């Protein structure tokens, strides 16, 4: 709805994906925890938005269903953080980002802006009317 602000808290290593159509004035925000749905197909069936591969596809489908046009879409990504050190197993954020980029590339969609990686945890405020996206991490705040 116009005027609505969608907020997602504490992205950590999760992916936040904001998709907005400025003409149709519709938008959606995805908060996906894990890269691939094959890790838990039962969960993916119940909640496709938990995984980047199923969640991103479903978000775009919903946007198109509501009248969004691919050529007009503004797509932004946030999150995908990681803890310190070099333990590959804990690089869930990087794997989330890789799956996102692969999906977007396959569908000829480019990211308009991103605030990803690092050891911060981000909160996203996404304004549906104009697509304004504000990222907060700790005491810092910036517009994406």
């Amino acid at each position, binding site marked *: 709805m116009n005027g609505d602000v969608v907020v997602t808290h504490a992205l950590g290593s*999760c992916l936040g994906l904001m998709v907005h159509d400025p003409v149709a004035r519709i938008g959606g925000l995805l908060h996906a925890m894990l890269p691939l749905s094959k*890790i838990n197909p039962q969960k993916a069936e119940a909640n496709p938005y938990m995984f980047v591969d199923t969640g991103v596809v479903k978000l775009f489908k919903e946007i198109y269903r509501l009248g969004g046009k691919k050529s007009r879409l503004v797509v932004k990504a946030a999150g995908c*953080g990681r803890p310190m050190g070099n333990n*590959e197993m804990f690089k869930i954020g990087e794997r989330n980002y890789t799956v996102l980029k692969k999906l977007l590339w396959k569908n000829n969609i480019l990211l308009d802006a991103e605030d990803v990686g690092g050891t911060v*945890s981000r909160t996203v405020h996404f304004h549906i009317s104009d697509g304004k996206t504000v990222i907060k991490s*700790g005491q810092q705040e910036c517009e994406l």
Partner: protein
Amino acid sequence: MKQGRLDDIISDVRSFPSMSGTALKILKLIDDPESTASKIEELLRYDPGITANILKLTNSAYFGLSARIGSIRQAIMLLGWKRLGKLVVTSCINAILDKPVPGYDLPSGELWRHSIAVSVAAELLAKELDITADDEIFTAALLHDMGKLVLGNYVKEDFQAIETAAGEGIPFQAAERRVLGTDHAEVGARLLESWSFPKSLVESVRWHHEPDGVEKPRTIIDLVHVANMLCLMIGIGVGREGLRYEPSPAATRRLGLKTKQLELVASQTLQWANELSDLSETSSR
């Protein structure tokens, strides 16, 4: 490090309000081979709040009992002593962990949600790794961040200095140590020591960020360590310090943990954690 700061912190540990007397008495009874179900029932008769909480938790889908439990006696029979102990701690610690935590900037209820989530994740990891379920895993995970409740005000006061230290590339708890002379894991361990909790629980709390620091590595510490990192990563109880902690490669090696097992547990944790944390919240307020 400021002079006298560590003394102030230790004095705060000593004056920190203890868990309810009923809970501590029940935990002692559970440890006592001479105790009986009726002794526990007798104690709980005077604490309807804890009783209600225990029954709600017992009947939650997480514990997966087929019969509906209506009394403490039934709960003891079906769950056994040790598991009852876990529920007693969970029911009593809620009021303490539910508070907002300054310094780390955790709003009211978030440390509680995090603690429950780490308990669930640690148990799920144990199950996934075929490690014999030890009821202490849940309790150790539940209590791992108690120290933040004492240290929070000091972290708030000196946040800039801790940030600067952490900016040099050391984990947040090491930055706490450099500036305050101690860290939230050590403070939590001292708190539990002052409550006469078993040594193995105290050690799990003390080493939850540095599982390689303990003289003899232990599975329970490794599990709490990994579960804690995982819950922070999926955004449950992640504070102002973000993800500035370091998962130990040795701990994951010791556990024999694989990436897909970690991700599977992540996918299962949120739902159970929400269910359990909501159950206790409603009954304690």
